[in-house]
C-alpha cells in the first residue's frame, strides 16, 4: 500500500465536504477516482497534497502520516500533483517552467553559486521532457501565451517532471479535443510507467482506458473500489453516477 486515506473528514464552515473517506492505492497501479460534480474529488486532492489539512483522519504515504504537512514537504516525499485549473508560471518560458519543476528533485535547492545555464543534467532533462510533451518547438515562449491544450500539457509535464513515485492528476484532459485527449493519455501512460497514478477524470473513455482500478466518490465518501468491469456492473455505482451520466 503506497497511499492510504483513513477515515478522513473535512468541512468548510458548516458544509461537510469529505465524510469518513477511506481509500487505498496500491503501489504501481493506475487508480481513477470518479464521481459527480461536487462529490469532493478536488477537495480530496487538496488534502492529500497538503493544500489544506483534514479535520480528522490519517493520510499515509508509504505508511507515514502526511496529513497536514505543507505541500513542499509532501512533494519532497515523492508525491506530485497537477491542478484542474492550470497553475503554471505564466511569465516564465515553457522551458523554465519545466526546469523549475526539476530543480528540487535534482538537488538544486537554494543554489546561489551555480550558473543555471551550465547545469547540464538539469537542462538536458528539461529538454528531454519538453520533447515528450511535444512542446520542444515552444520552449522559449512565455508559458502564459501557450494555447489552452498546450498549457494543460505543460501542467501535466510539470507534475511528472519531478520523477515522483506517486502522481495525482486532476482532470488532465478537461477541455481538450479528442485527439489532444488521446495524446495526453498516451503521455500519461508513458510517464507513469512503473509509478503509481491517482487520476480524477470526467471523461469515461479515459478512465476505463487507463485505470487498473476505479474508486467512486459520492457525497464525500468512497462507495466502491474495484476493477473497471465490476465498477461498470455495480448497481450502486450505476444509480449514483453512471446512471445520471447515461440520462444526460
Amino acid at each position, binding site marked *: 500500500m503506497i497511499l492510504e486515506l483513513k477515515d478522513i473528514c473535512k468541512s468548510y464552515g458548516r458544509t461537510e465536504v469529505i465524510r469518513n473517506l477511506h481509500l487505498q492505492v496500491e503501489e504501481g497501479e493506475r487508480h481513477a477516482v470518479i464521481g459527480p460534480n461536487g462529490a469532493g474529488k478536488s477537495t480530496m486532492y487538496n488534502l492529500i497534497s497538503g493544500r489544506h489539512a483534514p479535520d480528522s483522519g490519517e493520510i499515509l504515504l508509504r505508511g507515514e502520516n502526511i496529513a497536514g504537512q505543507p505541500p*513542499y514537504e509532501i512533494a519532497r516525499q515523492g508525491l506530485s500533483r497537477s491542478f484542474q485549473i492550470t497553475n503554471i508560471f505564466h511569465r516564465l*518560458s515553457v*522551458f523554465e517552467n519545466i526546469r523549475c519543476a526539476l530543480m528540487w528533485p535534482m538537488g538544486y535547492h537554494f543554489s546561489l553559486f551555480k550558473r543555471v545555464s551550465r547545469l547540464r543534467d538539469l537542462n538536458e532533462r528539461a529538454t528531454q521532457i519538453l520533447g515528450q510533451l511535444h512542446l520542444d518547438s515552444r520552449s522559449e515562449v512565455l508559458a502564459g501565451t501557450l494555447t489552452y491544450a498546450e498549457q494543460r500539457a505543460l501542467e501535466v509535464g510539470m507534475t511528472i517532471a519531478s520523477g515522483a513515485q506517486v502522481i495525482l492528476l486532476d482532470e488532465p484532459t478537461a477541455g481538450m479535443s479528442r485527439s489532444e485527449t488521446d495524446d495526453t493519455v498516451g503521455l500519461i501512460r508513458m510517464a507513469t510507467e512503473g509509478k503509481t497514478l491517482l487520476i480524477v477524470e470526467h471523461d469515461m473513455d479515459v478512465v476505463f482506458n487507463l485505470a487498473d482500478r476505479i474508486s467512486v466518490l459520492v457525497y464525500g465518501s468512497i462507495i466502491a473500489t474495484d476493477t473497471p468491469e465490476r465498477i461498470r456492473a455495480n448497481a450502486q455505482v450505476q444509480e449514483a453516477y453512471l446512471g445520471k451520466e447515461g440520462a444526460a
Partner: protein
Amino acid sequence: MKTVIESGGDTGALAGKTISRMTYAKLGLSAATLIVLLLVPLLGDLAVISLLNQIGIAIIFALAYNLLLGQSGLLSFGHAVYYGVGAFWTIQLMAWISNGAFYVPTPLLPLAGGLGGLVFGFLLGMFCVRRHGTIFALITLAVGELMTALTIMLNNLSGGEEGISAWRQGWLGFTFGSASQVYYLILFWVLLCGALLYGLTRTPFGRLMLAVRDNEERARFIGFNTYRVRLTVFCISGLFAGVAGGLLAVSNELINYEVMSITESGNVLFNTFIGGMTYFSGPIIGAALITTLQLNLSNYTDAWLVYEGILFVLIVMFAPGGIAGIIYVHGPVLRDGLWRLLVRSYGIAAVPAVLLVATGIFLIEFIYHWSSALYAAGAEIPLFGITWSPASVWPWLVMLVGQGVGFYLLLRYAIPSVTAAWQAVNERLNGNEEP
C-alpha cells in the same frame, strides 16, 4: 534565424542562443563605459565626481531593492531600514577606528554595512515576509516607521537628530581625502555588487525567485518552501542595501536618522520603478537619471518633487516597463531597420509633447511662485527671463491654451499615429519570426 533573448531581462536567456555579434558589441560598449568611468576623475570636475559618487550608491541600493520588487514581486515601503542600518554600522565603526579601538581598512568598510543589512534583513525579514502582497507592503511600512522612530530615540547609538560623524582613514597609499579617491572606491563596489547581483539572476535560485513571484502556490507544490525563498531574497537584498549604506557613510562621513526614513524608501522605489523593474538594467538607469535630475534640477526649481511625481505617474500609467522598457522595446526595431516606420509618428507626437511640457513647466513654476509667501502680495514673477504679473490674464491664457491645444493634438493625432505605426512594426516583427 535564432531569436535574440533580450539582454539583462528576466524572461530567461539560454546559453548559446545569443548572436555573438551582439555579444561583442555589448562587450565593446561595456569596456568603453568602464574606461570612461575610470578616466572621469582626471577631468577634475568636483561636482561631476560627487554626483557620480551619489549615483553609484543609489545604483547599488536600487539593484538590491529590485531583488524584492522586480524579481520577487515584493513591494517594500521600508527598505531604507537596511540601507540606514548599514550606514549607521559603518559610521560607528569609522568612529571607533578613529579612536583607535580597532582597525578595518577603509575599502572594506562597506562590508560592515552589508553585514548590518544582512543581520537586520534576517531579524526583521522573519516578520515581514510571512505574507506577500498588500500585507507585506504594510508590514514593511510599519517596520520602517518603527525603525526611524527608534533611531531618533536611541540617542546614544544614533546621535539623535544630529547623527554621527566620523572621518575616513587612509589605507596603503590612499588617503581617501579627495572625492576622486572615494569615487574609485565606490566604482569598485558598484562593479562588484552589480556583477554579483547580475550573477544571482543566472543561478537556479535567481530563476526560482521569478517562479515564486509568478505563482507562489505552484512553487510550493514543486518542493520549495516559499517562505524561506522570500526570506533568503530579503536577506540578500538587505545585505546589498547595507553595502550601499556603508558606502554612503564612507562618502558623506555624516549619517543621521533621515537615511532610513520613508523618504529614502520612497526614493529607491521611484528609482527602481522609473528605471524599469522588469529589467536588470532598469534600476541602474533609474538611479542614474533620478539622482542626476534631483541634484541638478533642485538648483533651478524648488518644485522638483512635483516633476518627479509627474514622471512617476506617467511611467506607472503609460510605461510600466519603465525607461528600460521603452529602450528595450526599440531594440529589435533598430536592429531590423524598422525605425523608418516610426519616425513620422514620433515627429507628429513631438509637437504636442513639446507644447505640453513647455506650458506644463510654465504652469507649475508660475503657480509655485505665485503661492509662495514672497509673491503673496501680488509682486511680479520672473520666469524664463520675462517678468509676469499674476494679476494679468495673459500668462494664464498662454498656459491654458497651450495645454488645451497640446492635449487636443495628442489625443487627435499623436496617439493614433503612434499606435498605428507600432501596429505596423509589430506585424513586420511577427511576420519575420514565423517563416
